[in-house]
């Protein structure tokens, strides 16, 4: 019996100390913690600042065009050397105080104006296409993960089908018909930037959602299996409560990260499609169509080619770094 007596004893815990938290994490919500981590990461902060500068620039540009500070369509033939194939007369693409980035060969339009205003159009297209892809992707991902069964299988096949589509080919082949069709629903003609931009956004967005659907579906499936969902079911929580209160709050982080990673993809897609003649055409500038135009002069006037290429590279890299930084900061595993 002596043995059983020892079994009855309370376990000795006198010298056992439960781990105490570092005060750094106390009193902060998961979001605040993530922001703190993000701020401490230098690269993330730099990329954030760059993205912010582009965004503010994009917002200001239309205003600056209106007040005449930016003149994206005004030609300055007098600055071009007509005998040498209309390239700028002076070095560095004809850079001067009034045209710091030079002028466009052939037309003499201010390069800074075209690029600055071009950022507005490029970012707008990328943003709109991202929103289309994110909204479709997130909704289908959530539905697929929650519903399971037939619905899940159908959405899964739709994902496969969309991914296997030769989308670039289709975008090109249908572009003129597609733009005309878009123009029917929109004010203005088929040659307007609106119709072209709308077609581009639609196609990019409609082909861009599958990876997001897969990601979100996977997230839903993992979160659904977490024990806190079982705990909620144990109290008799309704399905609605479980979806909206337990699962959805855990989904915004992956959605945000996907967003910051689709943006750069669409900015470069816009540039690539411009080269293939799809999207907004000059005289309305986009980073892509300025770059496309400049490629003809990459030898004769290198600086004209250099600036758009640099601007695209910077924004794409920054967005990607921002997305990576956010993903690291929001990763729940980093919560200790």
């Amino acid at each position, binding site marked *: 019996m002596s043995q059983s007596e020892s079994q009855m004893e309370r376990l000795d815990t006198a010298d056992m100390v439960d781990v105490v938290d570092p005060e750094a994490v106390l*009193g902060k919500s998961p979001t605040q913690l993530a922001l703190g981590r993000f701020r401490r990461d230098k690269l993330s902060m730099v990329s954030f600042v760059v993205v912010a500068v582009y965004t503010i620039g994009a917002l200001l540009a239309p205003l600056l065009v209106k007040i005449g500070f930016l003149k994206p369509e005004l030609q300055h033939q007098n600055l071009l050397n007509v005998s040498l194939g209309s390239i700028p007369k002076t070095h560095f693409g004809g850079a001067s105080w009034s045209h710091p980035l030079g002028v466009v060969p052939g037309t003499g339009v201010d390069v800074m104006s075209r690029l600055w205003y071009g950022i507005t159009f490029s970012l707008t297209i990328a943003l709109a296409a991202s929103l289309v892809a994110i909204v479709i992707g997130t909704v289908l991902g959530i539905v697929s993960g929650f519903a399971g069964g037939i619905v899940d299988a159908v959405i899964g096949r739709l994902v496969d089908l969309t991914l296997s589509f030769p989308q670039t080919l289709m975008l090109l082949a249908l572009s003129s018909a597609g733009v005309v069709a878009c123009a029917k629903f929109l004010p203005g003609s088929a040659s307007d930037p609106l119709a072209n931009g709308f077609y581009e956004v639609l196609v990019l967005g409609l082909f861009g959602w599958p990876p997001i659907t897969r990601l979100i579906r996977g997230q839903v499936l993992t979160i659904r299996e977490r024990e806190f969902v079982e705990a909620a079911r144990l109290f008799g929580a309704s399905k609605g409560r479980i979806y909206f209160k337990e699962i959805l709050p855990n989904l915004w982080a992956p959605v945000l990260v996907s967003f910051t990673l689709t943006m750069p993809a669409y900015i470069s897609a816009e540039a690539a499609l411009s080269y293939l003649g799809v999207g907004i055409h000059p005289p309305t500038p986009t980073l892509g169509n300025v770059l496309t135009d400049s490629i003809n002069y990459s030898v004769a006037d290198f600086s004209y080619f250099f600036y758009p290429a640099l601007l695209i590279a910077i924004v794409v890299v920054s967005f990607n770094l921002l997305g990576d930084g956010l993903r690291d900061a929001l990763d729940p595993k980093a919560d200790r």
Partner: protein
Amino acid sequence: MSHIDVAVPDPDQSAVLVQVPDGTGNAASQLDPNARPVLTVKDLQMYFPVHSGGIIRRTVGHVQAVDGVSFQVPAGGSVGLVGESGCGKSTTGRLITRLYKPTAGSINFEGTEIAEMSQRQLMPLRREIQMIFQDPATSLNPRHTVGAIVGAPLLIHNVLPKDKVLPRVQELLEIVGLNPEHYNRYPHEFSGGQRQRIGIARALTLQPKLLVADEPVSALDVSIQAQVINLLQDVQKEFGIGFLFIAHDLAIVRHFCPEVAVMYLGKIVEIADRETLYTRAHHPYTQALLSAVPDVKQAAIGGRRERIRLTGDVPSPINPPSGCRFRTRCWLAQDICAQVEPPLMQIGPRHKVACHFAGELGKHPTTPVTTSPAVAAAASDPGFASTWFEVTTGQPTGG
């Protein structure tokens, strides 16, 4: 008939039971044979269908996660459920809490049959049966504050007016040894042990009568395990909650459960009061598990010093071995083990074992204890397993 002698309870074994181990009044740790059961599980079975891949999903087999499990939890008492990973312990817990609907069998909670109930019918019972989860890292929603987590059951069941929820939450936090002022913090701000305390507070919110603790400490540091076990013991004593305590080794349940069931591949292979199980285990599997418990007196397991090492892996529950499921790893296995499934025999007042060669370590009989004509007949009768509750002795009637 002499070969079934081992199955006859030896006289002092029953004495052990009546004798109260000590006078500390620790009711939770004592076995009261007359306690009213809060939970009676009978022939519980859970087969998970296994589907083929592809578009047309056919059922190609079943995971026999739980296959004919029966036991009782006395009101305010506690039963330990022990077995290796994958033997169906968690599934049993989730069946009792009705997170899963059993394939067959009965779950009787305080006289109500709940195995077949719909989720709607179960709603009132959701207050009575709760669960503590294994992993404190995933059992608390990272986006909810502790107050929201612990208070949720109160709001869902509408048992308190809204302004009384916070005081109750704080009271619960205090009971589990947390600072009541920390209700507005998030789970990540707590250590593993503290998170498990939050899980315990949540389980206590609705004052349940039965708590399923699914390996409540196995994810914690060894230094913190004892604290959480003590808390559970206090809670049980204070609120008179019945416990099903799931663990993967015999060391932990020993401090907690006066009665212990050992599970292997979906079946209970031995069930006994603590004293008997730790000193006179009859099943080779239990003996192997016991030899891994460092502080069990070596004399208690037949004076052997060395640890019994089980070779091989646990077979797949999709296609369990014929006859005795343990035979692929059993050092006593003989032909009969592959042919006849050993019934769970009553060999003592509170001692049941399922083995053809049941016996204390070093004293296993050489002839099957189950092959007397009567027992063999009973074994081949499918109803046998379901009537083991009524079987009071392994000795055939009239023997």
